[in-house]
């Protein structure tokens, strides 16, 4: 081998030398990656073992703490100083506490929160919140909302308009979870449009994480952002707030197509009585998209005849809507057949 390399260095051309250097470089990098793969595996197994061991300790300790009132405050502190020394261990402890928090309610739940503070885990959470590193912030906000750490309100506020969707989602979750009433107050602080996904997310959080009284969604009808206005109409219809129908009606005349379409769709859901007349009168002048919305809600607000009368009103070139209509019609006929049978 030695001889071979010397041979090349002395007699070889430049191109061969370059090749040889590259070969060496590639082989070394390959070796580096192979060892990294093996190291990652080894590291992962080791880490899993550590996590498992600590989790067992934590779980034993927390169970005794919850169900076996034999622990003294000193024991609790001792556990902290022995087992929760570094960030890694503290993170695992937080995760474990969150599992208990999520699954338990009543007095045990309060005890879990107390434990979180006694172990001074709020310090780590606060540090992460202030860190400015998005994934740490996101995780810390999540922890704060699960454990209802209302003291961090101001810190979380600044993340409501961040570009990182993950962080923003956690911030939304936080404000809904910690609020006793008016869970959507945070929307006043929102300056960038809320995506459809975020709207679904807010709705879901409201259903699962919030237990106070359902707010009056009409407050949001005049928000600066169209997306929030759409969301508010949707929620009014979702929660059957019939008292807000009057406030939604003006949107039927909105210049923004999406607002108008939403108004038609959700007013139909709320069975607004004048809607059918509105549709009959304005159908011909509506855009194809709005027409589609109208066709889809006709059966809800009118009878069969009302529905069938619209067939002739769809322009012959508007195939998209004719197809939508035909689909609805065939489903409809099918249903009425199965009723008579």
């Amino acid at each position, binding site marked *: 081998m030695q001889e071979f390399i010397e041979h090349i260095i002395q007699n070889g051309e430049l191109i061969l030398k370059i*090749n040889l250097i*590259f070969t060496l470089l590639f082989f070394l990098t390959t070796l580096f*990656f192979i060892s990294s*793969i093996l190291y990652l595996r080894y590291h992962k197994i080791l880490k899993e073992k550590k996590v498992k061991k600590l989790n067992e300790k934590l779980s034993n300790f927390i169970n005794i703490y919850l169900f076996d009132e034999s622990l003294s405050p000193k024991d609790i502190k001792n556990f902290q100083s022995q087992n929760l020394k570094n960030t890694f261990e503290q993170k695992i402890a937080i995760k474990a506490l969150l599992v208990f928090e999520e699954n338990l309610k009543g007095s045990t739940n309060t005890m879990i929160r107390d434990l979180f503070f006694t172990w001074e885990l709020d310090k780590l959470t606060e540090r992460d919140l202030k860190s400015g590193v998005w*994934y740490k912030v996101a*995780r810390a906000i999540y922890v704060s909302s699960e454990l209802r750490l209302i003291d961090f309100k101001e810190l979380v506020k600044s993340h409501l308009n961040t570009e990182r969707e993950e962080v923003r*989602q956690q911030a939304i979750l936080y404000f809904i979870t910690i609020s006793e009433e008016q869970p959507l107050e945070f929307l006043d602080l929102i300056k960038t*449009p809320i995506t459809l*996904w975020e709207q679904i997310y807010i709705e879901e959080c409201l259903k699962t994480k919030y237990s106070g009284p359902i707010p009056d969604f009409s407050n949001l009808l005049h928000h600066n952002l169209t997306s929030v206005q759409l969301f508010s109409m949707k929620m009014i219809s979702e929660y059957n707030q019939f008292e807000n129908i009057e406030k939604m009606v003006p949107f039927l005349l909105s210049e923004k197509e999406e607002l108008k379409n939403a108004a038609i769709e959700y007013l139909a859901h709320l069975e607004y009585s004048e809607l059918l007349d509105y549709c009959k009168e304005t159908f011909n002048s509506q855009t194809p998209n709005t027409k589609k919305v109208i066709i889809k809600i006709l059966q809800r607000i009118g009878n069969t005849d009302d529905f069938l009368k619209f067939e002739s009103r769809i322009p012959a070139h508007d195939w998209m809507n004719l197809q939508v209509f035909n689909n609805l019609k065939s489903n409809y006929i099918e249903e009425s057949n199965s009723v008579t049978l």
Partner: protein
Amino acid sequence: MNIYQIAEIASWLFLFYGIIISLGYSFAAIFSFLEIRDYKRKHNFQAEFTLLQSSSLPSISVLAPAYNEEANVVENVRSLLTLNYPSYEIVIINDGSKDGTLQQLIETFDLEEKDFKYYQFISTQKVRAVYKSRNKAYKNLKIIDKENGGKADALNTGINLCDHEITCCIDVDCILESDALMKLVKPFLNNTKKVIASGGIIRVANSCIIEDGRIIDVKLPDTFLARAQIIEYFRAFLMGRMAWSRLDGLLLISGAFGMFDKETVIKVGGYNPDTVGEDMELLVRMRRKMREEKISYNVGFVPDPLCWTEVPQKWHILHRQRNRWTRGTAETLWIHRKMLFNPKYKVLGMLSTPYWLFFEWLAPLIEFLGILYVIYLLIFSNLNPLVYLIFFAVVYSFAILFSITALFFEEFSFQQYKKPKYIIKLIGTILIEPLVYHPFIMWASVKGNWDLYKGKKNWGTMQRTGLGNPQKKK
């Protein structure tokens, strides 16, 4: 000019090409790394919030063309019917199968013919009939029977006849994770720009244990051919698409699993039945159109392994598949040659299309020329054998480096192959792959170019062993 001068020039050219390729791959590796790291960070603290019950999620039409699939079609449809998503329809398009595909479906799902009226937004072969089930349990199943017209034509028919605004085009035999639709639709919703398409990562299903149409245990296939393709998929998805998605230069969403905005698809005229690379061609055309009309848009990419597909286990079938892919790439590049090096198309014109031209389409040809050149040298010159050895060493070491990097990314991110012995086996495969598998793939591509030149437009049917069959649990 003597033989040595030619040799010298050629050597420099090949070296230059090699350096360009290495640089390209290195950048791909860096971008992929960043993307994967972000992905990991997103997922390390909270499980995806379950929004599955929300009625606000848009309805999706899942389109699956079937051609002579009688062996598996029923099982595949059953698996599709159990996807976890609040509102979707399954549209199976029977593309004039010559076997009992349609009959099987009619009998199993108690189908009856339905009246249908439809407009050909995209012109297609004639539709013979539309079927729906009498059984309420299968109410979101629709079967379209049509004259044979190829995969693109079948998908276009599905687009004409499906009910919903978002369409998910899949291969009927691929196995989807149960939350696949949920994950793939997210980019459409979580975006302030219009999203025209989204795609995910495809994984190799061979030898995995499948129960009720779901992957329940990931195993490493015993055959070298399948393992080599696993490595290849790592490279293509973990290094290729991951990087392209970060650069917003994605040109291909696999036909096996992709989601599209129906309106945009119809606007650009649907899948092109005249190319065998219809999946790539469609996305390129959609992106081109959006750019030309100056509409800002996005293409989503979901790195989770959502779709598992059975790869060919026989050399001749693999050959046919790759032959087709090459022709697809070449045809797409030819159709959209105006985009090449055109700054108007930004990343697409200056990076993506040139990359596909040089690395995907030309690479096998240049490699082939290189081999011919080496043979020429062997015969007509008396170069020191050491020279060959060194050239070989540099190419080989680069090939394994690239694959190992891809494997490293897999280990760093998803770790689907859990057993340590799998890793060792995969490393082994990587060491042999450049010597056995790669030349074969190169040959298939060269052959593909040749066939294209000769004007052959044959589909290449793929034989399948059947999904449940390869390894059923107990």
